[in-house]
């Protein structure tokens, strides 16, 4: 017997015939596609948004790696691994305007801090100002609107000194730029000043740090970069280097949980979809009761009947999944510009979301959910089709 190696010609023929003749199967295809499309879309958005937010934190707040406490101006790095290493001086301050106050991280950065990759994450508004002997500060759009100030206005900074023996002192600065990253949650706690000026505000050695931006190819291998840094820089210890997620544990954990939640929801939807395909399969054999009896009468084995029904349903399922993924990706790309337009409107209710992000297809997750859906639905279809065993040719004579 070598019958199992090739699919029987009639099995193939009948399977194909069913796919093209049965409206129900085409309905199934469309439904699966319509289930898959929003799932894929949701996946694209959540993953892209999380990646986008992560990048905002990395490029504007922490770097991929942060070396704490030391101003390493002359950090020795491997150019293949490290794109930029910027020394910054930062500390917390209360900012007062005439109408409101806000607590901010004041980051002192050098003039080359806002390189191309950082400028792709944030946009600045400036206007020409009269020269002044006040130092400048860049506030976020969110902070500026909260404080009711605009470019050229003055605000007072109240620095909480690291040294308890000194009393807090206010300094006056002028708003010279307003920036906007698209993610208000981060924006509303950040501000930038000149690094040399920051040194005069935050004198403790723990205020200094180095933000390291790593080349794309090393993002998944930060440990290698850390090891290399430690090797190349005498006196640098592992303890002083932290990664972005170590630095923002709660934000990072939120992301992990929301990714898991999304996957769980997707899995539930997939289970429902698998039930649906198995009920389509059941309905199909219910409808095909007579042809199945006839096929068995003229000598088709039950295993062949089952295989043929299986091929019909599962190929439709696979086609639906593929179509749904295509549709989801299409919608994902299409909606990107719409959302970024929304983000520019600056709606308050959307401030927790990053709307202006690069749509990036999370192939791994898309693959994972499609494989899950395929495996689960084909398995449930196969099991549902076990019922063909009970359809015998004698049915034709006893129930007619």
């Amino acid at each position, binding site marked *: *017997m070598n*019958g199992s190696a090739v699919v*029987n*010609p*009639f099995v193939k*023929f009948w399977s194909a*015939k069913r796919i093209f*003749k049965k409206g129900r199967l085409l309905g199934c295809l469309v439904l699966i596609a319509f289930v898959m499309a929003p799932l894929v879309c949701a996946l694209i958005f959540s993953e892209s948004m999380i990646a986008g937010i992560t990048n905002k934190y990395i490029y504007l707040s922490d770097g991929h790696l942060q070396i704490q406490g030391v101003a390493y101006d002359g950090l020795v790095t491997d150019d293949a691994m490290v794109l930029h290493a910027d020394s910054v001086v930062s500390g917390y301050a209360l900012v007062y305007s005439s109408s409101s106050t806000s607590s901010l991280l004041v980051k002192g950065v050098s003039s080359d801090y806002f390189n191309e990759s950082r400028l792709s994450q944030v946009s600045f508004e400036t206007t020409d100002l009269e020269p002044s002997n006040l130092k400048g500060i860049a506030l976020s759009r969110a902070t500026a609107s909260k404080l009711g100030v605009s470019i050229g206005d003055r605000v007072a900074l109240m620095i909480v000194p690291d040294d308890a023996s000194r009393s807090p002192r206010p300094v006056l600065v002028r708003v010279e730029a307003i920036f906007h990253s698209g993610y208000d949650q981060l924006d509303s706690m950040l501000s930038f000043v000149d690094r040399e000026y920051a040194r005069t505000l935050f004198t403790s050695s723990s205020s200094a740090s180095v933000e390291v931006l790593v080349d794309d190819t090393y993002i998944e291998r930060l440990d290698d970069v850390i090891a290399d840094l430690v090797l190349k820089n005498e006196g640098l210890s592992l303890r002083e280097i932290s990664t972005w997620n170590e630095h923002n544990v709660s934000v990072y954990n939120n992301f992990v949980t929301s990714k898991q939640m999304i996957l769980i929801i997707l899995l539930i939807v997939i289970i429902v979809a698998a039930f649906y395909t198995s009920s389509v399969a059941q309905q199909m054999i219910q409808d095909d009761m*007579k*042809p199945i009896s*006839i*096929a*068995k*009468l*003229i*000598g*088709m*084995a*039950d*295993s*062949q009947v089952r295989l043929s029904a299986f091929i019909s349903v599962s190929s439709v399922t696979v086609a639906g999944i593929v179509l749904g993924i295509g549709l989801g990706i299409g919608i994902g790309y299409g909606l990107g510009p719409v959302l970024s337009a929304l983000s520019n409107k600056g709606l308050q209710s959307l401030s927790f979301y990053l709307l202006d992000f690069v749509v990036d297809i999370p192939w791994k997750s898309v693959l994972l959910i499609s494989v899950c859906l395929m495996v689960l639905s084909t398995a449930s279809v196969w099991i549902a089709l076990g019922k063909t065993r009970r359809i*015998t*040719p*004698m049915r*034709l*004579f006893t129930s*007619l």
Partner: protein
Amino acid sequence: MHPTDRQIGDHIDRPFAKQFDRPIQLLDITKRFKAAQDGEGEITILEDVDLCIARGESTAIIGKSGSGKSTLLHIAGGLDSPTSGKVLCNGVDFATLDDKRRSSLRNLHIGFIFQANLLLEDFTALENVMAPAMIAGRTARDCRPRALSLLERLGLGDRTHHLPSQLSGGEKQRIAICRALMNEPDVIMADEPTGALDEENAQEVERLLLDLVKEEGRSLLLVTHNNDFAYRCDNVYLLKNHALSLEKGLGLDV
């Protein structure tokens, strides 16, 4: 070697000699049905029935409606199982085979024709006729010539691409005959094949069936209540009181 023989023969293990001179044997068949749903009591339809179908001969079973003719044919064709007794198809007991082999045995050795034509509604005339050969593992291309020539022979040369719903009762029944003959089976089993047709069509189908069975050298097991039709067969049995009695021909001892 002719591809038909090779491909059909290779499709399954075939321990059954094509030349077995008694393609169907019923030995000591008894069939009882439950009298009611709840299982109380039984009615006997067949009791200790023996029947032998000889190669190339035609055998008719006559009897009153409800006497058990169809039941006998279903058992002979391996569709239903007897309460006791054995059915041998080319010497192989149906009861000893699994679904796959039993199906294959039926596919290769028995062609069925019923009162209701039982065609596949979504398949064209040609596809219906090719179906048994494709189930046996032959490609459509491979078996199309024989299917076409059978359809031609039964005057359906211009109906090959019609669906059953587009054909008359007589035409459908002729397609069923083509399908039954497609795999060159040893036995054609026909249960009231003309029962649903008007007089003219019935005679036409009757004639074609008997002629083709002779031409192709097949055995025929015909169940009918039409005595004229029955008496054109080599052997005629009457089914009465759960048993068969020979009315015409020599019969064959089991």
